[in-house]
């Protein structure tokens, strides 16, 4: 793999026609060479975005981090997104050796596959990439994605007994005397 990935020019025509199959990017090709299926997603900033299956996440990230020519060895952030019909766990990767290398890896859990009162489950990357530790806790706290295998999955920003996941679309904020939502408020 000697191409310089993530140049903005090839990304622009893809944006115009999202329904068609997007061409496989350099990182997707690298992964498929190593037997990992991935799907290219449109992205507006010109950074290659791929989707992988939850079961493939660990081997994908390990492969991208450890291979000599790719060397995406910096996990910038792990974030959670509540899309209308999926829960996304997003991994931004970057390379210390070549600052132009960037990749976004997404894991999408369809909401239909999550049973009522259950949390969507994504394998944790903390065991082999400790930078993800607090990020995954935050994503669990605010979006409610359960990272299976996380050593200490507990709320990090909200109080430990907070009810609900505030960044979800269906979140209802508390109604009590600390805000104006309560008709019986003290003022």
């Amino acid at each position: 793999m000697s191409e310089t990935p993530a140049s903005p020019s090839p990304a622009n025509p893809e944006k115009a026609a999202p329904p068609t199959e997007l061409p496989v990017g350099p990182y997707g090709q690298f992964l498929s060479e190593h037997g990992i299926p991935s799907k290219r997603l449109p992205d507006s900033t010109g950074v290659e975005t791929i989707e992988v299956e939850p079961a493939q996440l660990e081997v994908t990230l390990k492969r991208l981090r450890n291979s000599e020519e790719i060397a995406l060895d910096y996990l910038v952030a792990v974030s959670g997104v509540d899309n209308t019909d999926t829960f996304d766990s997003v991994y931004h990767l970057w390379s210390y050796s070549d600052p132009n290398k960037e990749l976004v890896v997404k894991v999408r859990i369809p909401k239909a596959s999550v049973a009522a009162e259950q949390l969507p489950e994504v394998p944790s990357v903390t065991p082999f990439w400790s930078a993800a530790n607090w990020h995954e806790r935050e994503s669990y706290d605010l979006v409610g994605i359960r990272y299976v295998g996380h050593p200490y999955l507990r709320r990090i920003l909200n109080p430990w007994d907070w009810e609900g996941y505030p960044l979800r679309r269906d979140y209802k904020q508390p109604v009590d005397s600390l805000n104006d939502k309560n008709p019986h408020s003290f003022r």
Partner: protein
Amino acid sequence: MSESIEHKTMGIQGANTDASDLPHELKDTITLTTLDKAIDFLSTYVVPLAPIAKWARSNSVWPLTFGTSCCAIEMMSVGMSAFDISRFGSEVFRATPRQADLIITAGTITRKMAPALITLYEQLPEPKYVIAMGACTVTGGMFNDSYSVVQGVDRIIPVDVYLPGCPPRPEGILDALLKLQQKIRTESLIMQRKRAYNQRAVRYVDYDTGKPIDAVKDLVQQAKLELESN
């Protein structure tokens, strides 16, 4: 001194409320210092000396070092030489509520912080004052309608002076302090007693969870009754 303010603030209404009658468990919660007791005595029973006592008290309002976000930067700058809050006797920012008279709530109060703020407020010795500094603590400010921010600090502790601004200029803090001093100097005895009664431990929020208790119970009264029955 047969009766003092702190007993009312504790919510203990007994026939004889001398300090020696207090149950042992409650003794360390009485935080009036000897000097405060003396000033109280002067301003209450030696009426001609009351203005002097109030003047002394109003010129030594010691704030608590309490800043939870950006407003605290302005609070720090008001202690520096450019604005020099020590001109008004308030330069001694105390790191413990036991030695402070005033909380300047400099910053956003989140629901997670609310129980801690109430604890700090209750640990202040009488007489205690609160300046709600910044739009956040006055009404919620730019976190209006946020799920995690207390929409105005007067929902959890009583406030003496509201100081709007985001953040207020240091001159604003000085102005709020002067207003507070004026209030201390002109407060009548009845107003003082009334305020002290209003300032008894605020029980609207559960300590452990930070969630408000809807039916406000007088927990101290309850504890007193339990102690009596034993």
